[in-house]
């Protein structure tokens, strides 16, 4: 008989051995030796075996004894996932390596735009989901110890050692915490593998496999008497027929596959501690082999246990009690060590994974937020991070211990395991959606997780405490708050489903539904889209996103911060390497976006993506996702679209330029034509008076006898022609001066009324006075402040035109003035025939004369008026729509001095 003290001695020796192995592995890794063993596919595969916890070691037999082959589903799911490594695990491992992911919370938060909120939620869910599982491990160790402590197995020398379950659990928890602290929180960088822990886990994996197989072989060949006999015994036992419900079979297989991917500890060993993607391929057949061997002897042990052991003994402990009952003490000891290994390795890795999550996603953000000056202030952050991680380890193990105390160590092992699986499986939609679907958004993930987790709590976790423990009997029977469709075991009124299937089905499917729908109807932020593209396309290209606008980052600040997280030596090495890469040996590297990206990754490996992102952004000053960045990740069609729109834009620019050129060309042609026309006009205009002057002067010179009357007549013709010529030249000069803008204005003030009267008087002087002019005086009177001489010139011209061209029987000109928006309008309207539409267009052109015009004008009058008005800041235009010819002279408001006293108000200037 093995005594408890003897057992404790062996157990402690084994623990010391594990500490030693872990210590040697750590030292070898530091010295760079033994890489062949430390980083081998065998160790990787064996470390995956933390999937097989005490739940497998003890619980599987109990499970089989209770419900037949259903226990196999827990191993079939992971086997399928491993065999299908090409689909999911390959992506996961690639992303884990390229994004320096530290945990599943980090992965999900990183995928959805480095959202800290998501990381916190996933971390909390993981802690809630895994704590019962840790308690379960403590329970199994204590339970197995208690077997040895039962009175009939106690030796005479053990009588003093009374066995206390709580004490045992406490010491086990303490030992596990110590181990995790020693080997799990030694280095900060999670991506630097925890060689000590991985080696210890691998050794424990061998121990538990050997132990279980040894018990199995003993049972089959030692107790049952061979394979054939064993089969016969199995068929004859009470679990001798296939009686697994189809729905449970399928659901549990899916659930275990999901949990295999989502359990924080599995993520830790599978993704974070992965050294080489090729190991995954080897594990794809090696790990299913391990699982197959682990479950191979479960049914024989259960059947033989049911046969040989007294009725009522706990089937969860058959692995231990069967050898003990046969007095196989050595085997029992080995079996105990196997169970002990299963429990401890799981607790160590699970605690490590959870503590990384808690410290990176909960403690560090709070600490950072509490720092008044942020990450740039002096001081070492490393000890804060390590301290946070150590406190988290203690916190999680304490939580597991408290749960164990609270639950009283009751309940079948398998039930707790399934519940825990159901909790972590809720990560699956967000995780897989993030890996495969670029449209998955942060809000979608949040909604899916929240709904899935709430349903899991309500349908699986809380009912597991029993009726009236947390949920009252009323809630079970009538639904939450009396709502019949909210019954924890019959959601939406659908009854009769197996509780586990019911919970898994509703929580996962509604989780998936919420995740998908919200993702479809929400819009992701730029950084989310960038990360999404990187995750989904991780296998296509290894390009990294450029998120930082680094111009404002100081290398010194970054250096100080990095030193505080990575330690001085590592930080300096990293910066020196980067400087060398940039060709700046011996200096600090330039803060290029690439460099900052690399730095963020490096920091992310230590404190998680969200925290690293927050710290870097404190120094760099926020992310800037430029259009180019988004373009770079946009899919091909978007790029094509952008390219074609650029082309379109360019061609539009080209056609605009061509249009401008065409217009310019037309203008030039027109100007050239105008110049030609002007030249021919002017030569014509000059020629006509010159011809008559020449011919009459020739007559005066050559004709001998001319009557004095004729002489006077001819001389006066010559005189009048020269006057006309002079006037023409004066006009031309005037026009040239005006057009060149060389004219200087002589501003003067005078009432409008006076100016108009002066103009009319001047215009009508010396004429036969047929034209009657009526000036409608403006109300209020207006005083002008402009070049009055020029203005009078315009008015005279207009009055004279009316005089010349108004062919009415009683020609009359009406001059009206009125204030309009922005200035003063003076209209000259006669009662003649007016101008045709064609004429209106050309009336202000030089040398234009109305057809059939009498008089001697050169056709420059209105052109000059037009130029003058332009100089004065106003304009002259033809007013269509009147009976006679109508011209409007417009003066801007700054050409007016004041509006007369009657109005009393100043015209705005």
């Amino acid at each position, binding site marked *: 008989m093995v005594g408890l003290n003897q057992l404790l001695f062996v157990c402690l020796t084994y623990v010391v051995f594990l500490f030693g192995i872990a210590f040697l592995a750590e030292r070898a890794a530091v010295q760079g030796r033994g890489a062949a063993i430390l980083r081998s596919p065998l160790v990787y595969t064996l470390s995956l075996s933390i999937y097989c916890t005490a739940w497998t070691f003890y619980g599987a037999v109990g499970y089989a004894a209770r419900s037949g082959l259903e226990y196999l589903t827990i191993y079939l799911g992971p086997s399928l996932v491993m065999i299908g490594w090409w689909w999911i695990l390959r992506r996961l491992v690639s992303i884990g390596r390229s994004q320096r992911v530290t945990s599943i919370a980090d992965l999900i938060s990183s995928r959805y735009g480095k959202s800290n909120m998501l990381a916190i939620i996933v971390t909390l869910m993981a802690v809630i989901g895994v704590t019962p599982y840790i308690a379960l491990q403590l329970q199994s160790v204590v339970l197995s110890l208690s077997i040895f402590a039962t009175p009939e197995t106690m030796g005479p020398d053990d009588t003093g050692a009374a066995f206390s379950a709580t004490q045992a659990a406490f010491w086990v928890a303490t030992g596990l915490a110590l181990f995790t602290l020693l080997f799990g929180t030694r280095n900060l960088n999670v991506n630097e593998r925890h060689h000590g822990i991985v080696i210890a886990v691998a050794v424990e994996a061998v121990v538990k496999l050997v132990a279980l197989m040894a018990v199995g072989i003993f049972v089959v060949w030692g107790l049952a008497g061979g394979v054939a006999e064993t089969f016969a015994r199995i068929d004859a036992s009470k679990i001798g*027929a296939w009686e*697994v419900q189809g729905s449970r079979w*399928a659901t549990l297989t899916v659930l275990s596959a999901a949990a295999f991917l989502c359990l924080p500890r599995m993520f830790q060993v599978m993704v974070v501690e992965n050294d080489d993607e090729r190991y995954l391929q080897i594990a794809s*057949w090696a790990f299913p082999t391990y699982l*197959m061997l682990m479950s191979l002897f479960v049914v024989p042990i259960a059947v033989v246990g049911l046969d040989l052991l007294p009725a009522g003994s706990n089937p969860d402990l058959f692995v231990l009690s069967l050898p003990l009952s046969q007095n196989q003490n050595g085997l029992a000891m080995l079996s105990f060590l196997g169970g002990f290994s299963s429990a401890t390795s799981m607790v160590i890795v699970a605690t490590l994974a959870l503590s990384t999550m808690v410290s990176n996603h909960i403690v560090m953000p709070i600490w950072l937020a509490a720092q008044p000056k942020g990450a740039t202030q002096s001081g070492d952050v490393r000890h804060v991070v390590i301290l946070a991680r150590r406190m988290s380890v203690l916190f999680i193990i304490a939580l597991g211990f408290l749960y164990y105390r609270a639950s009283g160590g009751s309940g079948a092992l398998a039930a707790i395991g399934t519940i825990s699986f159901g909790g972590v499986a809720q990560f699956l939609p967000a995780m897989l959606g993030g890996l495969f679907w670029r449209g998955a958004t942060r809000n979608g993930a949040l909604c899916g997780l929240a709904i899935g987790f709430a349903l899991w709590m309500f349908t699986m976790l809380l009912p597991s405490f029993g009726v009236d423990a947390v949920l009252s009997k009323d809630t079970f029977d009538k639904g939450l708050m009396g709502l019949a469709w909210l019954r924890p075991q019959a959601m939406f009124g659908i009854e009769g489903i197996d509780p586990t299937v019911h919970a898994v089905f509703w929580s996962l499917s509604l989780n998936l539904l919420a995740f998908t729908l919200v993702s479809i109807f929400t819009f992701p932020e730029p950084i989310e889209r960038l990360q999404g593209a990187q995750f989904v396309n991780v296998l296509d290209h290894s390009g990294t996103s450029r998120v930082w606008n680094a111009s404002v980052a100081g290398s010194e600040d970054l250096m100080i911060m990095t030193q505080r997280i990575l330690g001085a030596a590592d930080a300096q090495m990293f910066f020196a390497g980067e400087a060398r890469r940039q060709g700046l040996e011996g200096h600090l590297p330039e803060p290029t976006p690439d460099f900052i990206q690399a730095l963020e990754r490096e920091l992310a490996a230590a404190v998680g993506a969200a925290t690293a992102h927050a710290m870097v952004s404190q120094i760099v000053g926020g992310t800037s996702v430029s259009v180019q960045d988004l373009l770079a990740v946009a899919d091909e069609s978007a790029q094509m679209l952008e390219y074609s729109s650029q082309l379109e834009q360019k061609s539009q620019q080209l056609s605009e330029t061509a249009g401008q050129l065409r217009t310019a060309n037309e203008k030039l042609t027109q100007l050239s034509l105008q110049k030609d026309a002007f030249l021919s006009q002017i030569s014509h205009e000059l020629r006509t008076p010159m011809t008559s002057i020449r011919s009459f002067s020739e007559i005066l010179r050559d004709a001998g006898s001319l009557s004095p009357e004729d002489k006077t007549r001819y001389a006066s013709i010559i005189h009048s022609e020269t006057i006309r010529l002079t006037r023409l030249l004066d006009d031309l000069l005037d026009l040239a001066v005006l057009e060149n803008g060389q004219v200087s204005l002589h501003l003067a003030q005078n009432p409008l009324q006076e100016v108009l009267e002066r103009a009319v008087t001047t215009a009508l002087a010396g004429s036969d006075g047929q034209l009657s002019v009526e000036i409608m005086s403006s109300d209020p009177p207006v005083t002008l402040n402009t070049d009055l001489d020029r203005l009078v010139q315009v008015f005279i011209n207009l009055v004279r035109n009316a005089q010349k061209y108004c062919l009415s029987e009683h020609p009359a000109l009406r001059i009206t003035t009125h204030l309009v928006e922005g200035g003063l309008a003076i209209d000259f309207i006669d009662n003649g025939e007016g101008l045709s539409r064609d004429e209106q267009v050309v009336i202000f052109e030089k040398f234009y004369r109305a057809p059939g015009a009498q008089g001697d004008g050169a056709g420059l009058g209105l052109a000059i008026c037009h130029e003058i008005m332009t100089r004065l800041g106003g304009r002259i235009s033809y007013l269509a729509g009147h009976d006679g010819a109508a011209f409007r002279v417009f003066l801007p408001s700054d050409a007016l001095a004041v509006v007369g006293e009657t109005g009393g108000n100043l015209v705005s200037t």
Partner: protein
Amino acid sequence: MPDGPVFLERRSYRMRRLMDAIRLLPFLGLVLWMVPLVWPLPETTPTGAIAMSTALKYIFGIWILLITLCWLLWRRTRINVGDKVAPKQGDPD
């Protein structure tokens, strides 16, 4: 596929089909392991129930079959995939 040649060298063609096999293997496993869904339960057909030993042999047989297939495929494809994976070893860190 718009880019890439239509015809491949025999060796790379074979390699691609082997990769297809790796991809399909989990689905084969899933289908075979879900066969028990149609097995009769003792409470519905007391006489035709599947014996535990048969069920064990069937499920473990498939397990061994899948592991063997996976192992064979790994033997045939590891060099190829290893080459493809190898460049990624030069991680900048």
